[in-house]
């Protein structure tokens, strides 16, 4: 039997006061999927950072734009796809932050993107030039957690 991927989604306006709603949506889905509380907290923070970047960089604080958050659950894979229609923003094109240098020179650029990569198993960006951006955040359920779930 082939397992079907389960997908749920939510769309919010591009305002930081919607971040809590996004976090609640993601944490409930991650918890139901069987992640430990530590993993749930890490996934939620990564999604928060992605949405904050969209509000700040893609929409440049315009409050009336849309952010779509889709969660796809398939076997042991939990993927959060976050889509916007704002200005193209490609963090992969940016130099990775040199944390040691930042600390020495008291700078903190790129911390949100750095945390996303640190907290998730896979982070990918897709762009349609001038139209939309999509970031995919993936976390795998460990074998131990899968067994507990069963």
């Amino acid at each position, binding site marked *: 039997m082939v397992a079907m991927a389960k997908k749920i989604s939510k769309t919010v306006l591009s*305002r*930081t*006061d919607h*971040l*809590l709603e996004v*976090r609640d949506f993601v944490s409930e889905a991650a918890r139901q999927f069987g992640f430990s509380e*530590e993993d749930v*907290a*890490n996934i939620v*923070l990564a999604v*928060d*950072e992605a949405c*904050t970047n969209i*509000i*700040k960089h893609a929409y440049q604080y315009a409050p009336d734009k849309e952010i779509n958050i889709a969660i796809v659950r398939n076997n042991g894979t939990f993927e959060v796809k976050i889509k916007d229609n704002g200005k193209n923003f490609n963090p992969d094109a940016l130099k990775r932050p040199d*944390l*040691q240098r930042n*600390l020495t020179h*008291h700078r*903190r650029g790129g*911390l*949100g993107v*750095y*945390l996303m990569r*640190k*907290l998730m198993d896979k982070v990918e960006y897709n762009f349609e030039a001038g139209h939309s951006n999509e970031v995919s955040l993936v976390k795998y359920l460990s074998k131990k957690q899968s067994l507990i779930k069963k």
Partner: protein
Amino acid sequence: MFELTITEDGQIHLSGRLDASQAESAKKEFDKVTLSAVVNFKDLDYISSAGLGILFAAQKRLKDAGQGLKLINMNQHIRDVFRYARFDLIFEIE
């Protein structure tokens, strides 16, 4: 919801969630801190890089003036986030 209060013993007590939606008000409160202080995280449930940035800026300003923040009572997740960001190297964390 995020709240910063100064307790009777002079500690800065944080509570609630310090994300991008609360960053501006948190910055205003931390801008008022001019001397070394203990920041109590006991009732802080959540912090994102927006909140880390506020603390980072406050610590930089205070260190430049020969002062500094000491952070206490973090929950395990927030402690991990500080470690990932290597902020454990610029703050005294107890």
